[in-house]
């Protein structure tokens, strides 16, 4: 099952990359995809395939993508303001935030989202705490800043991956 999924993904990737539907091209793609499956199939990360076939997860993924891009743009202008301001109003530090996601892939997605939003960068995940370097710590209250950093993504990620 794992090998068949990897084979389909690799073949689609090859066809998109070359963008050419002649017979010889497809044969080369099949050979390359089989070689990829044999070499790297055991490292393929997806473990449960029933989740992969539920359509509402894809719907929430699209919603999450739109919200993520909007937050990304907004925060990017904020960082640009801090960089260009002559006095540089920054107050950096590392804060500790509790998350309640269970599976590994959900934690990874949350960490990647936090890293990709300008202003925050994930340093480490230990059990259920996540350590975030933040360029401007606005409040001292843990609940308030955990809402600000991870709360806006967490409920969508829970709907997509759990």
């Amino acid at each position: 099952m794992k090998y068949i999924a990897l084979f389909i993904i690799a073949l689609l990737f090859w066809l998109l990359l070359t963008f050419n539907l002649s017979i010889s091209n497809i044969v080369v793609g099949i050979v390359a995809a089989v070689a990829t499956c044999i070499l790297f199939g055991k490292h393929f990360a997806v473990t449960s395939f029933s989740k992969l076939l539920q359509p509402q997860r894809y719907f929430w993924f699209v919603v999450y993508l739109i919200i993520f891009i909007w937050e990304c743009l907004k925060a990017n202008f904020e960082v640009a303001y801090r960089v260009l301001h002559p006095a540089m109003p920054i107050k950096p530090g590392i804060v500790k935030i509790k998350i309640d996601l269970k599976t590994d892939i959900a934690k990874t997605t949350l960490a990647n989202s936090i890293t990709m939003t300008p202003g925050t960068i994930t340093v480490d995940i230990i059990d259920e705490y996540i350590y975030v370097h933040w360029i401007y710590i606005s409040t001292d209250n843990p609940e308030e800043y955990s809402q600000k950093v991870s709360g806006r993504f967490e409920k969508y990620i829970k709907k997509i991956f759990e």
Partner: protein
Amino acid sequence: MEIIGFILICLGILFNFFGCIGLIRLPDVYNRLQSSTKCVTLGTCSILLGVLFYTGIEGAGIRALIAIPLLFFGATVAAHALVKGAYIFGVKLGDKSVKDDYKDAEKS
């Protein structure tokens, strides 16, 4: 269509410029990573999207579309690895820092 692509490319180069200014001005390693990695990644994604709009759905446009997720995940994981490596290496947080919760967690 070409106009939209052109505007996206200009916007991307503006973001790249902000990121590089941050790389020069900010005081310590962590803050430099903050501004530069993400502003520059978003700017380059914007340039690639501009190439997609400029050329339309052809070979070059599809390649630009493939390059966007690769660049996104690559830059994110690289930034995460760099921050953790710099902390373990012993680079101190800058003078302006107000808080460090990771110090206790790393020892235990």
